[in-house]
């Protein structure tokens, strides 16, 4: 029996514009801990907009609606505060931070979150032990720990670095924005394994994707189709096959009607 307390994320009538143009036009969504929700939809539907608004990125104007994250009004929280509360966004285009050592970055981020939650910082030895353990999850070589964040990484390596960070930070709500874009089958499989390895009853995940194939590997509990700025259809994983067969067109027509 699910209760209000277990609702990780509650989005009500979310309306968002970008440079004056409405993109999300009344989006509703409820996500509970332990669930994996997939958000699919045609290009320009607003999938990445949703992901970015959740994380608090600038450039998005919220014109209406409400988002409650673990019962708190998310718009009252700064970007880093949302992270401290357990929100993690695996980015579609992870940036490079030249000169910033990957290990130092991970440790600073981890400790920033711990301190914000009133926990003590992790000492260097314990931290290294943790990193070595988690790096196995994404099948990455330890040499990546010595490099600068994402500098010179291939697309697949960048995405795996995102999952490594997710593994280290242990978020309660993970939003994966087109995590499979730009990846070949093997890289995608590694990423999917990593994500599956992080599923837990305390954690909710939103997998934003354009293509069905990632969902062959990360089987979602719920599938939503975002078209015309709102969720036009929700279902379980069988919806994915239906979309694969019919495309998005029929749903967009329904939405416009």
């Amino acid at each position, binding site marked *: 029996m699910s209760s209000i307390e277990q609702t990780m994320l509650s989005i009500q009538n979310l309306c968002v514009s970008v440079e004056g143009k409405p993109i999300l036009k009344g989006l509703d969504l409820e996500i509970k801990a332990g669930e994996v929700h997939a958000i699919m939809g045609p290009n320009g539907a607003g999938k990445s907009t949703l992901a970015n608004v959740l994380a608090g990125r*600038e450039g998005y104007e919220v014109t209406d609606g409400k988002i409650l994250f673990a019962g708190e009004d998310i718009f009252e929280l700064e970007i880093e505060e949302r*992270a401290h509360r357990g929100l*993690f966004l695996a980015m579609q285009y*992870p*940036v490079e931070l030249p*000169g*910033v050592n990957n290990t130092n970055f991970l440790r600073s981020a981890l400790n*920033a979150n711990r301190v914000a939650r009133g926990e003590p910082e992790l000492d260097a030895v314990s931290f290294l032990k943790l990193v070595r353990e988690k790096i196995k999850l994404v099948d990455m070589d330890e040499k990546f720990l010595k490099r600068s964040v994402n500098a010179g990484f291939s697309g697949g390596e960048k995405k795996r670095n995102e999952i490594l960070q997710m593994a280290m*930070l242990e978020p309660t709500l993970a939003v994966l924005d087109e995590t499979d874009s730009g990846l070949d089958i093997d890289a995608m499989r590694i990423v999917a394994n990593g994500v599956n390895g992080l599923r837990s009853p305390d954690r909710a995940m939103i997998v934003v994707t354009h293509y069905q194939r990632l969902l062959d590997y990360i089987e979602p509990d719920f599938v939503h189709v975002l078209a015309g700025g709102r969720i036009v259809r929700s279902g379980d994983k069988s919806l994915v096959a239906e979309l694969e067969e019919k495309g998005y067109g029929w749903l967009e027509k329904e939405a416009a009607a």
Partner: protein
Amino acid sequence: MSASSDQVDKLIKSEYEHGFVTNIESETLPPGLNEDTIRFISNKKNEPEFMLEWRLRAYQHWLTMNEPDWASVEHPPIDYQAISYYSAPKKKGDGPKSLDEVDPELLDTYNKLGIPIEEQKALAGIAVDAVFDSVSVATTFRKNLAEAGVIFCSISEALQEYPDLVKQYMGSVVSYKDNFFAALNAAVFSDGTFVFIPKGVRCPMELSTYFRINEANTGQFERTLIVAEAGSYVSYLEGCTAPTRDENQLHAAVVELVAMDDAQIKYSTVQNWYPGDAEGKGGIYNFVTKRGECRGDRSRISWTQVETGSAITWKYPSCILRGKDSVGEFYSVAVTKGRQQADTGTKMIHMGENTRSTIVSKGISAQHGQNAYRGLVRMTPKAENARNHTQCDSLLIGDLCGAHTFPYMEVRNPTAKVEHEATTSKISEDQLFYCRQRGLSEEDAVSMIVNGFCKEVFKELPMEFAVEAQKLLSVTLEGAVG
């Protein structure tokens, strides 16, 4: 003009009348510069005759020169007659009696820079003797150096104890004819550091101006001379991260380094002088001539600098690579924010065969800061197989600042190689968003990215200095974003 001469005459006469040298602590020259001023300074310091003659020749030459105006900096004209060229060192007990009397904002900065309490007291001008036993610290230090045969003292002291050494080397790297400010410095230099490392000696510890903090006020026309004889090594640290104020606006120092066969001199500077207010008024002008000569074969001179202060920084620590197989290095981080301006860089003059030089310049501009890199790489006709690699990177924070590059390359030997790479970047919104989404505050994110940008330079600094420099950068850039 004549009024001040009269005053000077009176002062000089009065001391002879009384038959003893007036206590140095009670004399200050009124503003103005003429030959008598120079005689007064030299006399006050009881300098050997050759020094006075040199000063006077420099002064005469200075009178024939024009102030250079080609730098990419702007400032109101300097009135050289409005400067006092000799001021008495502060009396002990003049300053604040305790930290309670010191500007809390200054203390806040000291704390952020991680400066220990005892050092904070010394920096704030609280009489050092009352604070900690500086005598024993300095004494142990001197003892170790003396055992190694290293000379480390003030120029004034050196002129008394080792006049021949000073005469042999001073002015041999930076002649008083070199430029306007060098001529002025040669004429009126107040004091500075003299270091001499004998043959084959590796100086047992890093030499730092901190250990001379208790000595005479070095003032605005500082003169430093470091000589490393064959096979020797010394690492010298100049400055500190603590913000320093001075009533004197113009700082025109000269630093000369001489390295003989197989010798190595490492010279590191961290400078955080008062940069002026938000409108750019009142800050210090740091116009300094620094040059090292790799006189001997296989010698090596490295300059490493972190410049975050001063209203205007105008300096080109340079290397003359005379000896065969000699090496010159320049690593620099220069930050300009507020209304600061910097025109800084280096000159690498390759004269000997197989000489090598490396230049890594990192410029950071924020708010309205203007940062210019100016570099000269000159390969003279005899520089067979000489090589230079230059990397010049600029980081812009915000959209009101500027970064400018003026590279000069003169190659007169066909076997020489010169490489120049340059990048310009911003701290992007995407980078900040990425860091913040991982839980880091915006300030920590900027600090991390900037330190990453400066890494190559910081790793050349002696470790303690490197840690201080990183903190200094964080403190400097606080509030510079947005």
